[in-house]
């Protein structure tokens, strides 16, 4: 490993939040120290998306019901350590109809639970459509949290992406600030790091060359007349001041949890997806731990995503595989591996949250107060059904009774979002998305 790289890593460990964040962090008590932690419980929401439907027979447990302990099928084995905090919800359908094909509605109506606006984007069938016509549930919760100083955070929400293509259309966006207002996920860990921690990395790089610049100035200066030297002298003093500023800033304002290590050289290519995913999860957990946000989403690829998961020894595109008929054993095996991998990423997220103590609440972990919702735009890939979306919840943020699987037999997913909002404290929400699908109110998960 090169020295440059080593010192970068050392820097990341040593520096803490660093100089660049100083100006805008000053005054944010939540970042400072333990004593400023509010006694109130911090409820959090994390939405994790993976595309192209699931394998229903590998996903759904054999038994449902209030009294039956949850049994996880092999595909979800990675979640075994969190089985007691897991809740699987069957029979919840995305009933939103109107313009757009099922992938488009699957994606853009998933969190918004309302119809797409008319538009000009032609899907694989059905009528063309535009953006979703309303706010998504994560943004609704964000709005609710941000409206109260006790739950307000610096970012309100953070949208993470992994291998999301660089284009904006109803297949690539699930979070909406409102009708026609899609929110782009950030799928570059470097960019997210920059957003969270400012230019700390860059400052360190600068600090590492300032000595040489000082030497150069002195060298050049020595050849000049005294009158000509004055500007270079001033310059040299400015260089020294910058050096001191950077050093001083690094000693102050330690984060409760130092930021994670991010390899700044990671290329945003398909084959690096596993590394990128872990980086994003680290950043996400870190942002929650430091209370920069209480709402986050983690979007893997996009609806109709064609990721080629060569790290799983799969050469085919994910979407094409999902179209294969049920009898195709090979495709089934590959889809199994793919969804195992997603479950593994979810388990990693849960693990990192479970390992992180909840500040100010002895004995609790972040996971105890964080509601993770794993979801998909389709129930099943080859039928394109929007029924029986695989909703799998982990964690304790919404105070649902976990360690079980429930079958609601055809409830609109609007009602799940109502339950989620209520569970996170947003109890005044009476309807969400299309009111037509809200009949019966929040489903009972207590």
């Amino acid at each position: 490993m090169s020295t440059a790289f080593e010192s970068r890593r050392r820097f990341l460990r040593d520096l803490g939040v660093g100089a660049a964040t100083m100006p805008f962090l000053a005054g944010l008590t939540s970042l400072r120290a333990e004593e400023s932690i509010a006694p109130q419980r911090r409820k959090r929401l994390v939405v994790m998306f993976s595309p192209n439907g699931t394998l229903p027979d590998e996903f759904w447990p054999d038994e449902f019901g209030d009294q039956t302990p949850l049994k996880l099928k092999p595909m979800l084995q990675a979640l075994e350590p969190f089985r007691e905090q897991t809740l699987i919800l069957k029979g919840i359908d995305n009933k939103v109809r109107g313009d757009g094909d099922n992938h488009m509605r699957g994606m853009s109506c998933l969190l918004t639970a309302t119809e797409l606006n008319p538009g000009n984007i032609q899907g694989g069938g059905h009528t063309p459509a535009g953006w979703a016509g309303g706010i998504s549930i994560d943004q609704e919760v964000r709005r609710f949290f941000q409206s109260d100083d006790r739950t307000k955070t610096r970012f309100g929400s953070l949208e993470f992406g992994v291998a999301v293509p660089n284009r904006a259309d109803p297949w690539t966006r699930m979070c909406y600030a409102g009708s026609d207002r899609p929110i782009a996920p950030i799928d570059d860990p470097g960019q997210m790091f920059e957003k969270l921690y400012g230019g700390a990395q860059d400052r360190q790089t600068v600090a590492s060359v300032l000595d040489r610049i000082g030497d150069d100035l002195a060298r050049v200066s020595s050849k000049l007349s005294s009158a000509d030297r004055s500007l270079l002298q001033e310059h040299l003093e400015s260089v020294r001041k910058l050096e001191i500023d950077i050093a001083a800033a690094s000693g102050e304002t330690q984060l409760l949890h130092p930021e994670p290590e991010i390899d700044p050289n990671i290329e945003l290519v398909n084959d690096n997806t596993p590394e990128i995913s872990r980086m994003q999860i680290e950043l996400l957990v870190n942002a929650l731990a430091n209370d920069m946000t209480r709402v986050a989403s983690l979007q893997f690829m996009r609806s109709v995503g064609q990721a080629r998961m060569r790290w799983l020894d799969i050469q085919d595109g994910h979407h094409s595989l999902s179209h294969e008929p049920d009898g195709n054993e090979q495709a089934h095996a590959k889809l199994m591996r793919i969804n195992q991998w997603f479950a593994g990423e979810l388990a990693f997220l849960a693990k990192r949250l479970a390992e992180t103590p909840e500040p100010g609440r002895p004995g609790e972990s972040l996971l105890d107060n964080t509601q993770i919702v794993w979801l998909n735009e389709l129930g099943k890939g080859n039928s394109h059904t929007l029924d029986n979306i695989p909703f799998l919840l982990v964690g304790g943020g919404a105070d649902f009774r976990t360690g079980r699987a429930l079958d609601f037999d055809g409830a609109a997913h609007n009602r799940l979002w109502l339950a989620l909002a209520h569970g996170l404290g947003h109890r005044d929400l009476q309807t969400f998305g299309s009111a037509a699908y809200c009949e019966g109110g929040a489903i009972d998960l207590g």
Partner: protein
Amino acid sequence: MPTPTPLRRCTLMLAGCLMLAGDKSPCAPAAPPQADARQADARQATDAESPATPVANIYRQKCERCHGADGGGTPDGYSKPFQPDQSLEELTTIIVETMPEEDPQLCVGEEARQLARYIRRQLISRSEPAPEPRISRLTVSQYRNAVADVIGHFAPSARQRNETSNGSARRGGGAGGDSEVPGLRGDYYQSAGMNKAHRLGHYRSDNRMEFDFGSEAPVPSLTADQFAIIWQGALSADHTGNYEFRLSTENGARLYLNFDPTPDRRALRDDSSVAGQQALIDAWVGSGEHRQRTARVFLLGGRSYPIRLEFFKYLEDDASIKLEWKPPHGTWQVLDYNHTSTSQPDRVFVSQAPFPADDRSLGFERGVSASPQWQTATMHGAVQAASEVVDRLPLLAELNELQGQQRVARTHQFVRDFATVAFRRPLREDEQQLLPTLVGDDVASLESGVRRAVILVLMSPSFLYPDLTPDGEAPTPWTVASRLSFALWDSIPDAQLTRTAADGKLQTRDQIQSQASRMLRDPRAKAKMQGFFRHWLELEQRDLAKDEELYPTFDEAVVADLRRSLELFIDRVVWDQDSDYRELLRADYLMLNDRLAALYAPDASADNAKLDGEEIKRRARRRQFASEFQPVDFPPEKRSGILTHPYLLSAFAYHNNTSPIHRGVFLTRNIVGRALSPPPMAIAFKDDEFPKELTMREKVTHLTRDAACMSCHSIINPLGFTLENFDAVGRWRDSDNQRPVDPTSQYTTAAGATLQLASARDVANFAVESPSAHRAFVTHFFEHVVKRRPSEFRPGLVDELSDRFVTEDFNIQKLWTQIAALVAAQDFDPPPKLPSEN
């Protein structure tokens, strides 16, 4: 040629005179030309006055309060030391006419002369040995240009040009070559469902980015229900500043600006995307409604940027698209052929680093401070540039598919090349060694290493200082090349200039000047020239808004057009082969488009005849080119170059009336080249306090009748009155307040001669014959080009350059190449020894 007369100098830094809301005081000091009369003055040596002599007492009583005991200035008075290069005559004149400022009559005659001598001998000579530092850092604009060009050096088409060029300059920096035409190339595609670019049906160049296809197909070879169009080419930016873009459509569209053009035109599919390109405006997804999206981007002037607009219709009833922009100093307008072409330029890196403004205390921008804020900005600038380089590394370093140690080696070579271009010289041995060390040998961390190397290079003095040659040391060929390119482009040398220097062909004055002539044809030179006029004509931060009731048609669009009209006029004159300064002052035409012609040449555009069908069609065609500016001739007595350009006439006027004082001060200082001292008292021009029937001329005459005022206003007013034939928006008028305009006056020249003036043309004719006017122009020009004062180089330099300017038929381009060559080689005759005054 008339003998140069001593110039009056204003030596006080005071605001005042006529208080104008939102306007610069007409009495703010300009930077007048220097005279170098030390030698003559030396002969006037007299007895030295000791501090105890009466004249010392006079200084203490009358001068010390503002100028300080040692002549170094005081914070509350005159903040600067006395100028060392004023002659005894000049200094005496200043004292007689303007000092002390509260009552210039208090110190005249022999007393003034003694005082001048005392100041020169006791105060100036004492502080004289501290010479001006010659070293300066890059100005902000030089920095932005230089960073753009260092990175641009490695862009694909620049690289190609560097490798193949054999001395022929190509304009615009594009690779479009001969096929380049105004407008954008439009490719018209038949769509098929998700595949927007199913079949290319048609292509052409489009002049104006405003299309309303209604329910029809745009071209017969496409169907009306679904089609897509891609427009692409180059956008040229005249000014540095913020550009706004506005995209309007009820369909789908994306605007890309300043990207790395991909070699293949990838098919547009709804389910694929072009990697790594971020749209400036993304309105791809429609919502069934007409919508408008805007975006803002900061661009450097004098450069072209790749632009691409993608558009598609899919089953909507109608199709339309409009792309407008709002350049700096402009208003919203449809993007058209005036600023687009079908060439394909490289991406330009535009540094967004937040630099503090450069010092302008001498009237031009200089890099004389390296403050902590500036240092922080250079850090941000270096970090941004490093990100840019790392993001585009495969392209810039031509890494292609290189792997392993080959990739490492290529990257090492790249950082060396990068430093060589940025430092504008071959690298020293230690630098050669250091840079690869910073990058390291680990192929997995090359990007971190490149980031570090780029930051080091761009924060180095070798990059940040245009010239670090020690005093008395002969410049290297690289230094000569660098000085030359900064003098012409405010940027680093291009590959050709560097090669010329390397070949040892940048040694003689002729060789240097021939490179200079080549470099003048580059758009960067054009941008720098425009910068000079912006400065000389005080175009910055002008508020031309007028009283809406009095001038209802004088709106923002007219102001923006006038600005462009003035710039086009200047370009036309200075980039003509003759490049004649006299034409600037005396041309009898204006550049007008349809909108301006209606206001300023109503006779030419009025046409009340009944229009026949042909004429209506002709006009419809013409409407597309309504933004076109054409020269429109006027009778010579009615227009005279920039003196009567409506932009300046409006700028130097009140919102509801003319202002002979503002116009007169402008003519006095900037055109005729005389210095004015600040006004003895602050007087507001209160229009409503005058009797209603007075003309503007009568009001001004009344207002400045005081003897103390008249020492300056006897110069200002006659010049300003010659423009009374132009109203507050610069239109010709014969009457003011229902009475005939009287533009005539008697003007006393600095030499004491009396001139009869009756029009702006008389002033222009006087100026083109006046050495002080020439010197003022040459001085301003020199300072803008070199960012230093000519007196720092050699006494008498301005006089020489002015004489040459006259003998070479006032050719501005030649003046520029001469200055650039002179400053590049600095092979002046040794400066004459300053004779002792005893």
